[in-house]
């Protein structure tokens, strides 16, 4: 997967992520602990649980990055929550524990106080902002105007992490850039019209 943000990917996701052996498998070969039944039960012994959480955190983040998943519903069928081959599923408590750990690392946010929906920031907002800036420069868009949808789904962003990204996350990154004076966001007649004027 060649993306404009290629270097960003590797640098910004080194959150104790030593998955160097498995990082280049974009066909998403799952790690072996995923096939070991006890890993689907939240472990009571602290040291064991800490290791378990660490492994699951890395797997979830990796998966989201490769599959470009931004939102996980804890009561929905997220593929990593079950492994039919060994007939095991994570219960709510385990799901909540693993995602909470990612939230604690600053790489995810709860979208509701009941912890049913989680936003995954496999790039941090500030990193998304950098990626967008890079994208603008690479495509000579320094003084141009684009709609938010064009940024997200237009031809220029194809092949980059920006393409198809979550709109909410994109807006937050754009607002960050607006605060830095790199662009101006203006509203059209409906949300689809929201536009951006770059002054990079």
């Amino acid at each position, binding site marked *: 997967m060649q993306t404009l943000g290629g270097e960003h990917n590797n640098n910004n996701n080194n959150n104790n992520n030593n*998955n160097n052996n498995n990082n280049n498998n974009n066909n998403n070969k799952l790690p072996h602990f995923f096939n*070991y039944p006890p*890993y689907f*039960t939240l472990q009571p*012994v602290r*040291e064991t649980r800490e290791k378990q959480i660490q492994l699951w955190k890395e797997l979830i983040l990796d998966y989201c990055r490769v599959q470009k998943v931004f939102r996980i519903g804890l009561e929905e069928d997220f593929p990593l929550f079950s492994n039919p081959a060994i*007939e095991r599923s994570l219960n709510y408590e385990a799901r909540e524990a693993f995602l909470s750990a990612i939230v604690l690392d600053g790489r995810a946010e709860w979208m509701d106080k009941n912890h049913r929906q989680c936003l995954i920031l496999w790039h941090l907002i500030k990193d998304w902002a950098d990626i967008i800036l890079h994208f603008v420069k690479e495509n000579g868009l320094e003084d141009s105007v684009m709609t938010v949808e064009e940024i997200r789904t237009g031809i220029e962003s194809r092949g980059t992490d920006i393409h198809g990204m979550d709109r909410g996350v994109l807006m937050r990154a754009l607002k960050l850039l607006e605060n830095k004076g790199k662009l101006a966001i203006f509203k059209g007649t409906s949300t689809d019209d929201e536009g951006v004027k770059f002054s990079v």
Partner: protein
Amino acid sequence: MRRRPGIGGLQTAAAARDQYRLLGENVAKLRTDLMKEQLSTFRSQLEDFARKHKNDIRKNPAFRSQFHEMCAKVGVDPLASNKGFWAELLGIGDFYYELGVQIVDICLATRPINGGLINLEELCKMLSQRRRGAREAVSEDDCLRAISKLKVLGSGFEVITVGKRKLVRSVPTELKKDHNEILELAQAQGFVTVEEVERRLSWSTGRATDALETLLDEGLAMIDDGHRDGKRRYWFPCVSSVSSFVASETL
């Protein structure tokens, strides 16, 4: 010598005994000297052999193992000190030292998963993976020797046998007999249930639960409540090959 009665006779007998004893000691000394000489010849031949086959010893685990046996027979320990003739000649003192360090590393890295017990086969596999680029291949025999050196340093490393397998223990807590029996039982499927332990070992529920809970606390077991029959299973990473799967992703 003609026996004569009386004191004279006694003195003669005593003198004779002394002479025989002296002769006996001389013969013994001769034998010892001869043995020493043979031994020293053998040792120097062993040294020549080592010099000539240095590369084979370094590169070939099977050859190396046989060499060790030969040395042991003559009372030579090439690993006795890191300096000194053998270590310098073969440089294998360093080899085992290096192995020892890597073994300690692997045991520490996998401890959160297996509680400090790892099966020897798996350890060797991980060691080989780590040493992929190195010119020297590593056998189980090499691992055992490196571990025995670690023992000498008092680092709490030990190889224990459970059922058909050899496990390497890297934590100070020794396996109690009850625990050993459970581990043996677990080798069949990788896990046990309380019921199974009770049934197969004829234990009371209390005894089975206590033992399993202790193993859990020590990090040697993991619980699994996900089976549809609702029975809790206790899995033992040290009898499966999980440590290598899990740890290779973090080493």
